[in-house]
């Protein structure tokens, strides 16, 4: 086990490093950063001054290592658009996005696991069809369109919820539904498939033959095993939700990392973009690492791989 964890940790570090190179290159390959800093229509001397002030006249490798070193110490530089410390900016917005991601994940799991179980137990029944229909619609609806439909219904017609902002709990309801419904179909399908497989296993037949109640067999014997891949997917999806929050947060003007990322991209505020990309990627890497370790702990066969 320790060897397995070490190996995975090493891989995670390498991946994070590779992403940092890409995130760095993405911005540097795009054009002259000094011109962007000096602003449009700046004089040549000002551009040169900015180039020297920001150390942009040094070799790229040196700049990368310098950037990486400062990033590792938690210093993401200064925002070109907001003119403030990027680290402070990101730390400010992080809780909103984390809250939204966790809420959406909880919403998705609460809807999809019961539906998936019911669909598997009553295969090809109306509830199976309903679950499938919900999944199919969820996968087909563009999430920004679904978000606008929610606004039409809850804010315009019913006047129950605020259209945008992030001041209160009410502001999180629609973003949570919009983002949660986006990932729920995957959980539903996985739960259903897992349950269908497990329910036809020999030990379930044994449990049923022993005369155990159907409820015990389904929830205690079957679901426990069928849920393992769902847990692994949940960890991965949480990382995905953090990234997917860009669209939803932008629509609802929810003041989180996703919205910040969108603003920074539209204003060519590259230190902020780099910081958000790095942060979300590292989150994803850590979550998959955690999922790998959890899986290996649950299922010793995986440790060999």
């Amino acid at each position, binding site marked *: 086990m320790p060897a397995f964890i070490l190996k995975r940790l090493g891989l995670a570090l*390498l*991946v*994070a490093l*590779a*992403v940092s190179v*890409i995130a760095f290159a*993405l*911005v540097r390959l*795009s*054009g002259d950063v000094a011109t962007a800093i000096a602003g449009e229509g700046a004089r040549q001397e000002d551009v040169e001054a900015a180039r020297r002030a920001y150390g942009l006249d040094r070799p790229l490798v040196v700049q990368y290592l310098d950037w990486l070193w400062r990033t590792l110490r938690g210093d993401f530089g200064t925002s070109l658009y907001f003119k403030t410390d990027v680290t402070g900016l990101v730390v400010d917005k992080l809780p909103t996005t984390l809250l939204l991601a966790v809420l959406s994940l909880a919403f998705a799991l609460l809807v999809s696991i019961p539906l998936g179980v019911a669909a598997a*137990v009553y*295969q*090809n*029944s109306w509830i199976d069809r309903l679950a499938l229909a919900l999944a*199919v*619609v969820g*996968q*087909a*609806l*563009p*999430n*920004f*369109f679904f978000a*606008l439909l929610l606004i*039409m219904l809850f804010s*315009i017609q019913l006047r129950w919820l605020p259209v945008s902002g992030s001041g209160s709990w009410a502001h999180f309801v629609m973003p949570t539904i919009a983002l949660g419904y986006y990932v729920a179909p995957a959980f539903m*399908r*996985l739960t*259903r*498939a897992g*349950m*269908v497989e*497990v*329910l*036809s296993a020999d030990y*379930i037949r044994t449990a*049923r033959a022993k005369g155990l*109640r*159907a*409820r015990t067999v*389904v929830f205690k014997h079957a679901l426990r095993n069928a849920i393992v891949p769902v847990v692994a997917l949940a960890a991965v999806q949480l990382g*995905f939700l*953090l*990234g*997917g929050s*860009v*669209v939803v947060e*932008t629509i609802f003007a929810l003041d989180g990392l996703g919205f910040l*990322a*969108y603003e920074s*991209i*539209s204003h*060519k505020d590259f230190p902020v*973009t780099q910081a*958000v*990309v790095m942060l979300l*990627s590292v989150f*994803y*890497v850590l979550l*998959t690492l955690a999922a790998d370790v959890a899986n290996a702990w649950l299922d010793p066969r995986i440790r060999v791989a």
Partner: protein
Amino acid sequence: MVDAALQIAEIGQPTAGARVRGRVFAHTSLVLGAAILLAICAIAVLAPALAPHDPYAQDLTRRLIPPLWYPKGDWTHPLGTDNLGRDYLSRTLYGARISLLIGLSVMIISGVIGTAMGLVAGYFGGRVDLVITFLITTRLAMPVILFALAVVALLGGSLLVVILTLGLLKWDRFAVVMRSATQQTRSLDYVAAAEAAGASTARIVLREVLPNIAPHLIVVATVEAASAILLEAALSFLGLGVQPPLPSWGLMIAEAKAYMFFSFWLIAIPGTALALLVFAINLAGDGLRDAIAPEGRG
């Protein structure tokens, strides 16, 4: 109550009737999905003949005319007009071209990259596999929408930039599925037989392995095409994708957002078109997967 119902339902053992229904359902979804998809393709190809107006022609005296089913609607503009007085039916029909073009080209670019990586990793194994697995893991750690937004913002939005960006970003699922399918196929007897017969590696990979994992490839391809279409729509909706005046459905929704409170059809029509297209692709893909592996619906 629940217990009684569960007992009647004969847990996990669908009746013969239910099983037949399942098979028929899979078949129906494939046919239905393919039919809708073909219809949309036909619309895209025939758009110039079908569209009643020029999708780019503005007429500021005829702005925001509602569709037919509203009291003020009329037959000159069956789906109404947008805020610049452009015929909405024509724009929606032409929009099918953009979505299909995106779906198809991104699928081909990412499919070629991903399949090549998956085949090589799965066939050769060892160090090659390690390197490719590392590339896949790295790619998975990059949030697609964020990278796509950043790249499009840096290079400037255009149809070509969106296609290339998404094509170069979305090969991961192809690579993952092709890699494991190749690993399984590699150990089969007919591959060993081909090796023993002295066939070249390229021949074995392309003529023995690839045709046998092609079904998996087609299923992944449908999923990826649908996802590429949704991503383009999202990018265009955020203003960092296809640029005006192109009638991309995502862009049409973005342009209509300011008017959605009074002219709801402006977002409902392109939104429904988008959902219908993705629904058809997913349906066909699901049906295809069931036809290939009837046991594994899920």
